[in-house]
């Protein structure tokens, strides 16, 4: 829809409008759900048929010292040190902490160290660069509910956007979601931001799946335009509820040990109802979030996070009470009706309420500077008199998105034993003048601004103008 304008950020608008809902494909019939052969007796279906093959790259015992640390959980250490060993955070502390003598040592004077940025909302790989039609793989916009599709099956690991997010944004983990054309868009996948030949080579080991859902304008517009349900917000809810009802019946059969025809769509939804699969729900308006919350109670599931929650500030108390995170932009607004009431203080107001606050991108460009987006939100909060420290604000990019993705036990902060996903910034990361200097993923140095050999170049960019450029 907003095709024709160039560049990625324009895609911001189009992505937000639906994640490029254009389709040219024929809709398959509603009953044409993928189904495998009927089973005669109860069987356990493989829940991990496309397993991660990622194992972390070789590491060196690494020390960064004399550095200002935001630990990702709201803590700060001035003149601190960190030890990375065998892919894990070994220890972190102040100037008195004992350091190994046989390590690679980096002096962090004047620099800042944080856990890697986690973007909970990305379409990299599914809507990659170049954004040609042949690459438009993010919305299976042929049916309003497609819980059977998995975004990982669209991920193109050669998307140059991954490398930009690493080098310019310090992004070490990201969730790739289906677009928002559908009420139930399919499963999302959590990736480590490491270049790889295959999607499996990027897949975050042990991360749970999520189901992407969407409220509001996009599903009703996309399907209303096709002359089918839903064409209204009430239609959105009706289709959702009917689908959940069906899923509840499927799950009941499974729970009772009865034989079922395997239904990949129902399998995903049953996974949500049993709590194994999280729900990431695109939803802008406060009133719609409240309705979704009631729907989740009606069918017995939990929303992990509302994404694009531009009106979270209107119901921050409700989100806090329900324990639901809000993933937000700092200041996007006005591109569509449901983004009209956006305020720059949204993120700070969620934080003020004590609710789970996340800054997300939904964009191949803004993922390269989520630290800057968080900084603007932080400044907006301080302007209204709120006391928010830099280290508290870093939780919006670290432990909070890790929680909402179900990986907070593995990454998202610099606690001993966690994955050594770490960024060394060449200044305060909330300054516009600061850039990532080094990025470690599972303790391996995957980007170094000071060393062109530690700058990944995708297959697509090899042999093209500007190959290996600073970008």
């Amino acid at each position, binding site marked *: 829809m907003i095709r*024709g304008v*160039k*560049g*990625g*950020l*324009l*895609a*911001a*608008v189009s992505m937000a*409008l639906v994640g490029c809902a254009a389709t040219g494909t024929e809709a398959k019939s509603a009953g044409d759900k993928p189904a495998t052969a009927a089973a005669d007796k109860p069987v356990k279906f493989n829940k991990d048929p496309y397993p991660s093959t990622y194992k972390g790259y070789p590491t060196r015992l690494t020390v960064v010292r004399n550095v200002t640390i935001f630990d990702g959980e709201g803590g700060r250490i001035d003149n601190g040190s960190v030890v990375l060993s065998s892919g894990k955070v070994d220890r972190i502390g102040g100037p008195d902490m004992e350091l190994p003598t046989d390590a690679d040592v980096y002096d962090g004077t004047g620099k800042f160290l944080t856990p890697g940025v986690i973007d909970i909302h990305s379409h990299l790989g599914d809507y990659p660069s*170049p*954004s*040609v039609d042949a690459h438009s793989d993010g919305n299976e916009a042929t049916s309003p509910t497609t819980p059977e599709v998995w975004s990982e099956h669209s991920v193109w690991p050669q998307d140059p956007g991954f490398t930009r997010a690493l080098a*310019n944004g310090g992004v070490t983990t990201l969730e790739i979601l289906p677009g928002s054309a559908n009420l139930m868009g399919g499963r999302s996948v959590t990736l480590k931001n490491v270049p790889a030949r295959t999607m499996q080579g990027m897949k975050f080991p042990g991360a749970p799946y999520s189901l992407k859902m969407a409220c509001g304008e996009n599903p009703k517009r996309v399907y209303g335009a096709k002359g089918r349900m839903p064409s209204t917000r009430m239609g959105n809810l009706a289709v959702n509820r009917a689908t959940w009802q069906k899923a509840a019946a499927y799950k009941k059969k499974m729970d009772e040990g009865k034989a079922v025809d395997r239904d990949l769509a129902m399998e995903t939804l049953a996974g949500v109802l049993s709590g194994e699969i999280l729900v990431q729900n695109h939803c802008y308006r406060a009133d719609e979030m409240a309705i979704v919350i009631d729907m989740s109670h009606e069918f017995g599931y939990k929303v992990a996070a509302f994404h694009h929650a531009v009106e979270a*500030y*209107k*119901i*921050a*108390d*409700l989100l806090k009470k329900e324990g639901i995170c809000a993933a937000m932009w700092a*200041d*996007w*607004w*006005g*591109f*569509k*009706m449901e983004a*009209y009431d*956006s*305020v720059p*203080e949204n993120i700070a*107001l969620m934080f003020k*309420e004590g609710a789970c606050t996340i800054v997300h991108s939904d964009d*191949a*460009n803004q993922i*390269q*500077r989520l630290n*800057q987006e968080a*900084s*603007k939100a*932080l*400044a*907006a909060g*301080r302007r*209204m*008199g709120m006391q928010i420290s830099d280290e508290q604000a870093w939780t919006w990019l670290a432990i909070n998105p890790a929680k909402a993705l179900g990986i907070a036990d593995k990454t998202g902060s610099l606690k001993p034993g966690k994955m050594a996903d770490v960024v060394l910034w*060449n200044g305060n990361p909330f*300054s*516009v*003048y600061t*850039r990532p200097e080094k990025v470690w993923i599972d303790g391996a140095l995957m980007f170094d601004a*000071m060393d*062109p050999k530690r700058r990944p170049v995708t297959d697509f*960019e090899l042999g*093209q*103008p*500007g190959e290996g*450029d*600073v*970008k």
Partner: protein
Amino acid sequence: MMRALFLSAAALIAVPAAAQDVAITNAKLVIGDGSAPIEGGTVVVRGGKVVAAGAGVAVPAGIERVDAQGRYVTPGIVAAFSRVGLVEVDAVTGTNDRSATRSRFSAGLDIAPALNPMGSPVAVNRAAGVTRAIVAPGSSSNLFAGQGAVVDLADDMDMVTKPRALQYVAFGEDGSAKAGGSRAATFLLFREQLLAARSYARNPATLAEWGNDAMIQRADAEALVRVINGTTPLFVRVDRAADILNVIKLKTEFPALKLVLVGATEGWLVARDIAAAKVPVLVSPLTDLPGSFEQLGATQSNAGRLKAAGVDVSVGVFDDDDAHKMGYTTQYAGNLVGLSKLPGASGLTWDQAFASITSVPARAVGMEATIGSLKAGRVGDLVIWDNDPLELGSRPTAVWIDGKRQSLVTRQDRLRDRYLTPEEGALPKAYDR
């Protein structure tokens, strides 16, 4: 601090004082021409125009004095390529006057009557320190998109600073789509339309003779005549290095064309040619992905490399939400300052970066004598900032446009204040204002 949140409705609708004289003293004064900030500077505006700015400037007796307390005082930001005023909500078509893809007119379209100074994007961008914008149409049904304007973002009904200040056309992939499917069609259509306009200029009757076969309408021809003779700058969207060179070559046949390149994602690959042709460039500088095959060479170092080659580079915010987020202009410029610290990268100095969002775009559109700096004779567009204006989260504490103090209260502020505490009180939120 908190008190500021509870601005009354009266504050929102208060009409700024009509006086157009003001002196700001004790400023960290940025002229906007690329020179370094002046500590302890003073700027004097009389009758809506800058009369003096610098160190040791005397304040005339009897005019309003504002002590900046050492803060940055700058010219207002000039959004280099924008749709502010043309759009309220992008996806609500009735409020979106960016493009006219079903009109039978093209180059003749003039955005001036489509501008809405009361639209909320005007106020939001103004509160971010943007006082002027170069506004271009999006597209028409034909190759030329139409005539843009230079506008002010003041809290009044007169938005147009200069109507028909530019003509806009896209080459590259977008141009191909309009022209019939290839770059060859774009260049031929461009040439034929200009030649038709030239024939019309020599003999208006020719258009009537062509009748229904005319490839342009009378209004289009009149607008294109002003492009051919250099009266109206021609803003050309172009990205691929080869396309840039071919666009520059158009000046061989039409030597009076005043070309301005928009985008120029691969400009750094042909920076010397652009510099030699003395063609200014507007970039959205953080474009660093190969979003299309005409942007394979995309890098954030584009602006710095063009500047180093001697090209006049303006920094804008486009390929993004170009109606609402002009406040990103300072952030983008600031990024270029940070970029210059990285080995292998090219950025801008702070002074260059600030000029690239004020006087340089003013020069690109031929208005450097009027807007974009605090040199004497320019419009009295002043901003006092709470911090380094290129730093994240810095905001204006006061803005003047044409010497008039502006309201900085937005609809967003009102919503924020209503929901400072989300719970409803004795009455529903609808009574809280």
